[in-house]
């Protein structure tokens, strides 16, 4: 019994993924849930587990190729678990399902899923003897230019050869070479800038496809960037996606920032007292983060507008409280989500945080673990500096930034005392949240931390 392995959907607005590495080759034995391949999409470089046990019969999408979600990327033969076979590609993708009622069976509107080869599974064009998926236009152009389609890499739906693909080959002189499809070259002044990065990442010889559909603006003429000595480093897929998200977030949300100062002395003392016992009993380190998370939860419970998203003119108030925690990686940034943070105690949160951070750093996060956040926390203070002004992670309306916890002289009852202080910043979306709510939210956070009453161990 054969099982189709499909490109998973990583997020509501994500329609495609790039295969970065196959961890098994055809003929290998694979267990159910064993890591099978790695993908890159949005901010996640994730390992995808095998849906069933058996022998990997065939890889249909190669490393470096980008395909739409639900595309069959491999086939596994074997006595796979009964429930393991991938669901048939739905006629409409999940985002449409969330947005509109299910269409009548008689006539599904926009058959968005259909373009990805509804009958036969998509086939990489490089395989000899198998049918090559392209289009009438592409075949005509190939015939006109004498190009063998089996040598053309395909980046269209389901790995088919699209108009852009064949045009690239024609532009490169008729043979599929390393030359990237270039946008019309910028007019070079002195000094001559390199050819502009095209919409696809510059294709290296061994990699075909792997397109990311962004081109970022420069604010000055391109020639001004290139002078003297320099080295060019193409952005990784993750970097491009982070960049895309950042500019989009700033463009879409009306960012306003509020800062408050929290006396962490009580929490610091409680933590100092409890941490050894905690580590011994639960075999996991106790940090300050669970305290901030629970304080944020208290704030969100009191002010549900902070736990919302904006869709057009509808404010979507989320009932779950899922807190995304920004984690710095050597190669970028990722925001794994602590789901239902309001239902967890200090131990539960700490465990989840440690687990997510560890798996983020070892690229073992599951796609679901970076989705469905309703609020975010970031910790710029860990790198030093008083406080940060973070960018909101869409589609949230707020993000809490934590400064460094340091001892500072403060005034209490007209005397100077030394306390462990921490600046907290709230970046919020003024389209949805007004200053009054933002400040009151911060006040609850501050209050919760300064008057900590929950047991830790």
């Amino acid at each position: 019994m054969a099982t189709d392995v499909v490109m998973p959907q990583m997020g509501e607005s994500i329609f495609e993924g790039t295969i970065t590495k196959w961890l098994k080759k055809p003929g290998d034995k694979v267990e159910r849930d064993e890591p099978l391949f790695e993908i890159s999409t949005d901010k996640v470089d994730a390992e995808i587990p095998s849906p069933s046990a058996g022998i990997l019969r065939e890889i249909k999408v190669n490393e470096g190729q980008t395909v739409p979600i639900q595309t069959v990327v491999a086939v596994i033969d074997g006595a796979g678990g009964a429930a393991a076979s991938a669901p048939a590609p739905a006629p409409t993708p999940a985002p449409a399902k969330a947005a509109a009622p299910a269409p009548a069976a008689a006539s599904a509107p926009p058959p968005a899923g259909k373009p990805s080869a509804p009958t036969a599974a998509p086939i990489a064009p490089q395989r000899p003897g198998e049918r090559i998926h392209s289009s009438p236009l592409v075949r005509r152009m190939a015939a006109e230019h004498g190009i063998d389609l089996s040598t053309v890499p395909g980046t269209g739906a389901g790995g088919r050869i699209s108009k852009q693909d064949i045009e690239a080959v024609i532009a490169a002189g008729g043979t599929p070479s390393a030359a990237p499809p270039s946008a019309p070259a910028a007019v070079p002044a002195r000094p001559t800038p390199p050819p502009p990065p095209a919409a696809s990442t510059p294709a290296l010889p061994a990699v075909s496809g792997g397109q990311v559909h962004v081109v970022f603006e420069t604010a000055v003429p391109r020639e001004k960037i290139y002078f003297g000595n320099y080295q060019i480093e193409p952005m990784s897929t993750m970097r491009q996606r982070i960049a895309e998200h950042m500019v989009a977030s700033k463009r879409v949300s009306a960012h306003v920032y509020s800062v408050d100062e929290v006396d962490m002395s009580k929490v610091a003392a409680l933590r100092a007292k409890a941490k050894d016992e905690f580590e011994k009993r639960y075999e996991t380190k106790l940090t300050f983060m669970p305290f901030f998370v629970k304080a944020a939860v208290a704030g969100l419970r009191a002010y549900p507008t902070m736990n919302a998203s904006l869709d057009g003119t509808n404010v979507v108030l989320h009932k779950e409280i899922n807190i995304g925690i920004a984690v710095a990686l050597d190669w970028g940034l990722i925001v794994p989500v602590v789901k239902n943070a309001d239902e967890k105690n200090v131990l539960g949160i700490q465990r989840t945080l440690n687990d997510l951070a560890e798996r983020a750093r070892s690229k073992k996060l599951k796609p679901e673990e970076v989705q469905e956040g309703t609020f975010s926390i970031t910790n710029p203070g860990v790198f030093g500096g008083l406080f940060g002004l973070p960018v909101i992670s869409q589609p949230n309306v707020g993000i809490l930034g934590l400064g460094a916890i340091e001892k500072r002289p403060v005034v209490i009852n007209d005397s100077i005392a030394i306390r462990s202080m921490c600046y907290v910043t709230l970046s919020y979306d003024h389209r949805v949240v007004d200053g009054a709510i933002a400040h009151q939210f911060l006040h609850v956070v501050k209050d919760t931390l300064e008057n900590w009453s929950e047991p830790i161990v």
Partner: protein
Amino acid sequence: MAEASANGTQITFLEAIKQAMFEEMERDPAVVLLGEDVGVYGGAFKTSEGLLERFGWERVIDTPISESAIIGAACGMSYLGLRPIAELQFIDFIVCAFNQITNFVAKGHYLWNAPAPMVMRGPAGGGVHGGPFHSANPEMYFVHTPGLKVIYPSTPYDAKGLLKAAVRDNNPVLFFEHKFLYRRIKGEVPTEDYTVPIGKAVVRREGRHLTIVSYAAMAHASLEAADALAKEGVEAEVIDLRTLLPLDEETILQSVKKTNKCLVVHEDTRTGGIAGEIAAILCEKAFGDLDGPVLRVTALDTPVPYSPPLEEHFLPNAKKIFSAAKDLARY
């Protein structure tokens, strides 16, 4: 939509239709208007208000409630040298006259050398909570009938120019007016006499990534979707058919030759709608130009619902068009 003239004025879609009738009846004494409530009442939508006062009861005729009689009488009038405009109070009821139209009006010239220079017009289309008897889009019954012409404009300029052209055409012409547009859209209309050619589509918006073909109210929704698509870097070319029969194949083919992808949008129900016809034509005549399947966004294959949320679900809209176009662009 650059159709303004030096001394043009902004008028509603409905006003444009009224002006066309008024001016044609002024120009040619053979032009008459007949239909339910068109005279004394001025028309259910006030489309013929003032005509009875101006032209008198011999030229503006209130009929009994019988579409078959209205069309049959108009057909007879046209055989005798008049150029009648027959109004259907709601186009939904035109099917009461289906026999008259298909067996006599459409065939007379072919069978007996008896041309019927008449116009059959009325409000069509939904989106106004009119329910299943007041929201129909029955255009394809007549596109399927050789011997007729079928017009379905989307702007005041086109409505006036095409209605005038229809009156002057010696063939029987069906002129559908989308009631959703009656008072909702305004446009520049020249004060001097002009016509718009029947059988010519128009490119409303140029683009290079895909072609959206549409007409009537959906032409506006398609343009709205095209604006949203442009923000995402997808440039859609939008064609407004204006006339359904004869279909302007040439404009569609030229566009698809350039963009290589086509999405057809109509408010008519899916099965048997003109999108199927266009897809077949593209397959026959532009197969080597297609870089993706011909897709369509249409209403569902059900009667038009009365319940507002159901009607909204039933109808196409800019959001559905945007979604389909985006997927097609990415194919």
